[in-house]
């Protein structure tokens, strides 16, 4: 158990360092780089000047949003027409309209909340050219946004070119890594075929339809790009997505690898590696805390079995027995720390208090977080921490040598409010009306947690499901679809606007009177800012959901 714990946490940290270096070199090749000249040459031939010229933050954002709109429309069309499109060996039928909206929103926003089961509803064409395509470019969008933020904070007036960034990250970071991981998964037994389902005749003389497909390809980018949308409904609990302890390990490492490397990339682009070390340490501390907490809490038997003869030392309900409770719990922590959202056990069956850990991860949404966007979220907490604590040193607060003033704080507070507004607003609306209260499979606090989790997952662009919820209804599809879109783009636009506004200011030289942002003390301030703001905003619902559930269940 300890070995697993260490392996899953330490290996990605070690791998992230060189990867972060490589990512920075790919996305910011520098003037003298032959790679940079070559790629720019190709991009400008293909896309003209617009694909290479330097953009100010407003134009960068505009390009990014335009690209995402086009992708959204493109995938909506593919999904709507899947019954007539090729690569449909199992003849999947048409999808319902609100579900199409939900799926398109879900995948374009890197969320991968799935109100459908892939093996039941999706053609190979939809999976590969709709969803998997978005799994690549939505992750690349996040990384590009982070690169733009880093450039602005580094003091540049222009923040790069979105199309160049997108192409470079997709072709030279995500594709090679995905290929490597896919080969590892293939070796571990994950299927990869374009043939349709197999009909098997069992020993009892029954017929069984065994669904398969090009799973390994999708599985690799699903983990690497913090997407989480699986080929099959049960996601990584399905033996074809995650057949063995080995593939489980590869997947676990892939989940946090790029989010970790993104912090180093940020440090290299801004030229402030010490700051990156502090931010990385804060995220790492929270991750270790989360992982430790789930393993400890899941180590207790399920409350329903307590005192019965079948009681075992740990909670095995809803777990894959080939992994055990530890690998399941650990996965739950990691997939909600990053905004991955893939699962290898049922979160609905976690011990009530354990469920608080994935929820807390998504509420904070900064424990490495989504590819690129995790650090962008963290930036907001840093700005708020800098502002409040910065005053205590007796100067106008400043970050990276630039004064944080009214404009920045207005934007930062708006960005900070989006996440709780969507979660609490959505939860309140659905808990008080049949739209949500009528779809839960459990009553009381546990049922409330099911609603809360669904909105949290959508707002965090996580995509994991607590389940226990009849969520493929028109109201759920539309509500979570809207939440995912708002929760994706507003928290990218506002931080970039802050960084853009900061970059326009004259840098202030560092003196002994300056609040240093690369120290242990500042690390504690970031940690405090994340934990405090998270706790204050979500404590009431945490108490009414998982905590009340735990207290109620254990009263008997």
């Amino acid at each position, binding site marked *: 158990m300890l070995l697993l714990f260490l392996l899953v946490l330490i290996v990605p940290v070690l791998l992230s360092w060189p990867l972060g270096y490589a990512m920075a070199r790919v996305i910011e090749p520098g003037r003298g780089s032959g790679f940079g000249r070559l790629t720019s040459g190709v991009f400008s031939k293909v896309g003209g000047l617009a694909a290479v010229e330097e953009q100010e933050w407003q134009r960068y954002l505009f390009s990014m949003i335009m690209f995402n709109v086009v992708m959204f429309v493109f995938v909506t069309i593919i999904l709507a027409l899947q019954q007539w499109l090729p690569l449909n060996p199992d003849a999947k039928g048409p999808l319902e309209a609100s579900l199409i909206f939900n799926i398109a929103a879900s995948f374009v926003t890197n969320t991968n909340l799935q109100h459908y089961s892939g093996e039941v509803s999706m053609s190979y064409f939809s999976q590969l050219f709709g969803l998997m395509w978005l799994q690549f470019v939505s992750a690349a969008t996040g990384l590009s946004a982070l690169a733009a933020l880093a450039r602005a904070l580094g003091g540049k007036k222009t923040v790069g070119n979105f199309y160049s960034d997108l192409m470079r990250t997709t072709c030279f970071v995500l594709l090679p890594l995905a290929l490597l991981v896919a080969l590892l998964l293939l070796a571990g037994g994950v299927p990869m075929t374009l043939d349709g389902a197999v009909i098997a005749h069992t020993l009892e003389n029954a017929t069984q339809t065994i669904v398969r497909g090009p799973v390994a390809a999708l599985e690799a980018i699903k983990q690497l790009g913090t997407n989480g949308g699986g080929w099959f409904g049960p996601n990584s609990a399905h033996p074809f997505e995650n057949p063995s302890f080995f593939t489980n390990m590869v997947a676990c490492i892939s989940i946090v690898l790029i989010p970790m490397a993104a912090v180093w990339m940020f440090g290299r682009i801004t030229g402030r590696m010490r700051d990156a070390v502090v931010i990385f340490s804060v995220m790492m501390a929270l991750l270790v805390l989360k992982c430790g907490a789930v393993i400890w809490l899941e180590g207790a038997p399920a409350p329903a079995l307590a005192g019965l003869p079948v009681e075992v030392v740990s909670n095995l309900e809803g777990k894959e027995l080939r992994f055990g409770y530890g690998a399941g719990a650990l996965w739950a922590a990691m997939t909600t720390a990053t905004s991955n959202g893939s699962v290898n056990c049922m979160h609905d069956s976690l011990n009530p208090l354990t469920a608080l850990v994935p929820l807390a991860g998504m509420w904070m949404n900064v424990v490495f977080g989504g590819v690129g966007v995790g650090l962008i979220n963290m930036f907001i907490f840093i700005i*708020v921490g800098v*502002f*409040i*604590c*910065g*005053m*205590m*040193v*007796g*100067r*106008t607060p400043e970050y990276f*040598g630039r004064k*944080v*003033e*009214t404009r*920045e*704080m*207005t934007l*930062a*507070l*708006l960005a*900070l*409010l989006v996440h*709780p*507004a969507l979660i*609490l*607003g959505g*939860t*309140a*609306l659905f*808990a*008080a009306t049949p739209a949500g*209260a009528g779809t839960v499979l459990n009553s*009381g*606090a546990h049922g*409330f947690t099911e609603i809360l989790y669904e909105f949290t997952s959508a707002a965090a662009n996580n995509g994991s499901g607590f389940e226990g919820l009849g969520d493929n209804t028109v109201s759920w599809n539309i509500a979570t679809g809207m939440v995912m879109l708002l929760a994706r783009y507003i928290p990218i636009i506002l931080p970039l606007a802050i960084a853009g506004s900061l970059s326009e200011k*004259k840098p*202030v*030289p560092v*003196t*002994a*009177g300056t*609040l*240093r942002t690369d120290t242990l*003390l500042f690390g504690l*301030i970031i940690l405090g800012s994340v934990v*405090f703001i998270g*706790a*204050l*905003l979500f*404590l*009431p*619902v945490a*108490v*009414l959901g998982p905590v*009340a559930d735990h*207290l*109620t269940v*254990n*009263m008997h």
Partner: protein
Amino acid sequence: MMKNNPLPNIYDQAKSERRQTRTSSIFERELVMSALGRSLVMLDPRAMVKNPVMFVTEAGAVLTTLIAVLNATTGALHQNYTVAVMVILWLTVMFSNFAEALAEARGKAQTDSLKRTRQNTVARRVKDGKEESVSSDELREGDRVIVLTGETIPGDGEVVEGAAMVDESAITGESAPVVREAGGDRSGVVGGTRVLSDHIVVRISVSAGNSFLDKMIALVEGAIRQKTPNELALTVTLAGLTLAFLLVTGTLWPIGKYFGITLPVPTLVALLVCLIPTTIGALLSAIGIAGMDRALSANVLAKSGKAVELAGDIDTLLLDKTGTITIGNRQATDYFPLPGISRERLATVAMKASFGDQTPEGKSIIILAEKMLGIRGAEDGAGTVVQFSAQTRMSGIDFPDGQSLRKGAPDTLINYCKHLGGNVSEQMQGLVDDVARKGMTPIAVADGKELLGVIALSDILKPGISLRFARLRAMGLRVVMVTGDNPLTAAAIAAQAGVDDYIAEARPEDKLAYIRKEQQGGRLLAMMGDGTNDAPALAQADIGVAMNSGTQAAKEAGNMVDLDSDPTKLIEIIEIGKQLLMTRGALTTFSIANDVAKYFAIIPAMFVLAIPGLAVLNIMHLATPESAILSSLIFNAIIIPLLIPIAIKGVKYRPMGADATLRKNLIIYGFGGVVVPFAGIKLIDMLIALTGLV
């Protein structure tokens, strides 16, 4: 001509009153009464809306009052509780208004005593060559007035004719009279000060009601008070947090429906008010006004609150050497003759050359020579004194027998001797440099066309000044010394005093250039100046403090005026600025940290009926759900008046580095902010349980 005037009493009285307000306790009876009155007036929602946190609190109080009235007519349950919540909510709002009104009243008490010095006086206005008597408050910019001995100067202005001794003690507290004369850098006069001798003609430079003092009074009293940039940013932040907690409490009502409970609105309002940062919201204005008050206490008139706040951000201080780093004037400390010249001869010639020199430096040359030669009260004989002028840059004496003695700047004197055909020893330059390198100012002495040697004038550092600079450096400030000395002397004194940089042989345009250069690098500079030729630099500097004794041009250019004309005041001003920001940060942190304990009190109380298991979370073992909510609300209210002293006096401030300051404040206000309310709420709960109110 001297008129005997019984007026001085007023000045002394005013001065001692001002001293008293500086030292008096914060809750003085008279001030408290006037503040209480004003806090009622301030309940006007149109005024409250400028403070989003307290506006929401007031809205909650109104809502709860409506419910209490409605309940009274229907006879609903828990009426005691509802009324209690209502009363505490109104008290919270009142406390906030009181804090602001009290800070205003304190500022007003200080300005009142300043104002008293400018009661209406009769002014002799000169119009078309004729003199007429008008009231001082009818004076307009550009008017000329004559002020005779014993009369009070009717308004701020500039001496355009004559010179006079002026008693400025009413403004500065300094009892020694000062000379104010037409032309030069000592022409500025302030209304309310008194002419002791002679008469002057003053050109009034600001119309009545527009003087610095009037502006300062208006700033302190809130008439033209605007939010400073950081105050605005903090208000936005607090408004954002308020919105967030509005969201948290607002959504609890429908969520309560899911659990089958209808949460009472007064309870939700109570939770909301406990969570939103009322502590800092209530004290924010008071902190800003108190910053202005402290500047005023230090006898500094700031033209805006923004300037006081900006002072905390200053990176570089430009300080004049004389009077700030060194004591007044230089003293002659040694003679260095050229080879072949005796020390006695040099001393004698230097002494004789200084007979006509009335400056302290000149006198010190004579004293030193007398000591060396063992004579007393040397006679100057019948020589003709040659005065120092900026053109010749030397002075001396010519005797009837043709002996011509000169002393002055070495390079000037070398040229002078060469011009007369004298032989200038090669060793002269070496001697001059040696003296300069030791931090002393070399003055060359010549007898006719023969150079004799050098007098060394030494600067004496103010006691403790290098320690003070070390502390400034710990705070991250750079100190730059500005001096007219040559670079070698300047470097030596700079090293002794421990400043970071110096501008030697500084002319006003050098200062300006230095400021521009530093600002290019993003640094903020503060400087003090008095002369008209300082005006461009004062205007360019981020904080320009003009001395009250300075010219009108200098005062117009700067953003503060120091009534004491004390050059070390800059350091004090920076500390006031830093303290202002620290107080805001500390109370914000405290306010937010308080929320943890309030959650632990209120959340179990709200839901314990629907979910009995939540009783476990009542870790403070508060008596009943109602008393838990009331205790939190009461704590939230009374912490405001309890913190008024910190808001008004500012958090304790010691000059040290940013990290050390932050660590200290985080422990006190962050950690303390989490712990204190647990104890406070528990205590109040026990008291409520004792009274059996709910």
